[in-house]
């Protein structure tokens, strides 16, 4: 009974916090409805959804459908490049941020003592780096790079890879630590050393979950890659921004549909892959 009471209190507190935040920010249902000045824009934008542009609305004769394909292709490329780099960061940092490699069966007394000092040091450093990478969103990384170097293709890839690498590392390290350790213990009993226990007894068991999570993050990277277009690289966001600026909403919708299609295809593909790796 007391347990239920406490849970009720927590729910009440959360609801209360939500109401307070809405009051503080002055939120109301009226805000959702566009005001008179904007109503024209609103109608114009959403009615354009039914007539996406195939050719340039500016009369330049440019093929917008082709442009959307190009934007989609570049969106995929940036996501792939960013994820490849993020995977390297994630695997390396994830290894050091897992406790599995430095806890476990004590070897010699001296190594055990050394490990007791160095283990937490490396572990702590890896955790700190991960937190730093993760706490800065890819948009902010992109803004920083834009301010510091001007945004190049390489910078855009880094902006994506740094926070994604951090997130992958955090999740990978948790998956490694949660993987069953019994096989590793058995290998240690058969004379395996620490690295062998990790790579033969522990990592293979965690790999399907890690792969599945990496696929999911790739989907997120596709969306992020599109958004990076707003900073100038030629992904879908770039074209959306350009067309939006000049109110060519038909073009905007062509690009948006391309983005929807891309995300749906990626979702189906990674769903199928995940199903195969986890359930097979």
């Amino acid at each position, binding site marked *: 009974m007391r347990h239920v009471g406490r849970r009720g209190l927590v729910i009440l507190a959360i609801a209360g916090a939500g109401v307070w935040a809405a009051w503080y920010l002055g939120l109301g249902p009226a805000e959702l409805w566009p005001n008179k000045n904007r109503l024209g824009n609103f109608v114009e934008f959403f009615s354009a959804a039914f007539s996406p542009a195939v050719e340039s609305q500016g009369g330049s004769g440019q093929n917008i459908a082709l442009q959307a394909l190009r934007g989609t292709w570049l969106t995929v490329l940036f996501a792939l490049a960013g994820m490849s780099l993020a995977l390297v960061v994630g695997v390396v940092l994830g290894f050091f941020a897992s406790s599995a490699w430095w806890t476990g069966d004590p070897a010699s007394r001296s190594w055990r003592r050394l490990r007791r000092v160095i283990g937490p040091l490396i572990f702590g450093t890896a955790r700190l780096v991960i937190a730093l990478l993760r706490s800065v969103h890819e948009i902010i990384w992109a803004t920083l790079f834009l301010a510091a170097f001007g945004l190049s293709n390489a910078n855009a890839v880094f902006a994506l890879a740094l926070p994604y690498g951090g997130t992958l590392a955090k999740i990978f390290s948790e998956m490694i630590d949660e993987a069953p350790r019994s096989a590793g213990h058995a290998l240690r009993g058969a004379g*395996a*050393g620490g690295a062998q226990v990790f790579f033969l007894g522990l990592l293979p068991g965690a790999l399907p979950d890690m792969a599945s999570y990496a696929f999911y993050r790739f989907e997120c990277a596709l969306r992020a890659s599109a958004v990076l277009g707003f900073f100038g690289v030629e992904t879908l966001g770039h074209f959306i921004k350009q067309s939006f600026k000049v109110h060519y909403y038909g073009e905007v919708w062509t690009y948006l549909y391309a983005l929807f299609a891309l995300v749906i295809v990626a979702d189906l593909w990674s769903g199928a892959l995940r199903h195969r790796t986890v359930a097979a």
Partner: protein
Amino acid sequence: MSHAFELKQAAVSYNGTAAVHGIDLTIATDEAVAVVGPSGAGKTTLLRLLNGTVRSTGGHIAVLGRSLREMPPRELRGVRARIGFIHQDLSLVPNLRVIQNVLSGRVGDQGFFGSLRHVFFPPRDAVHEVHRILERVGIPEKLYERTDTLSGGQRQRVAIARALYQEPEALLADEPVSSVDPARARDTVALLTDVCRERGLALCMSLHNLDLAREFFPRLIGMRSGQIRFDQPTAKLTDGDFEALYNLERDEMLKA
């Protein structure tokens, strides 16, 4: 060298509490011994003491003719590599193929990169050898199956195959049949005792099932409260000895 294991007054304590103590025990290189006794008697600790995954905190222990006390870790790895251990929970990697789990048995003899290559890109003769061992334990057709698609009894055979692929001089088995049905349990104990006899390996197995212990092992060790209560040829043991071993009323109840 005629003893696989030789313990004199061996003891293990965890945080000051004795798990086993005063253990005097010798097992010959071709002997098969079963350890019986109630849960918590120290059977698992004794077995892990024998392959050096638990270090003794007192007494003397020699494995395959070499004293384990103060042995440096590199040499200890070498000794462990000579002893197969079959765990209660089998301890296989579920999403690896059967052959990969078996191939990983030989890690103790290999360097880091050598062992990775051996498991994931095995040479042809290693594949043949694994196949021969799987044939012996009765599941040759499962060579390339994913381990988690196998039944409990088949997985147990994979664990046995891994221990055999290690080319051990002695096998230790900790309650290897506690998770399978009685018919499978009998088959497995028979397989282990047969294989050890064929290959001249010492075998030391802990068993809950007294009937199997008495049927398959010529020598039984009874453990209770971390001590050896009897160590006798099976033929000389009476029902009374077993009752005394498992009877809870005598000392445990008084202590509580």
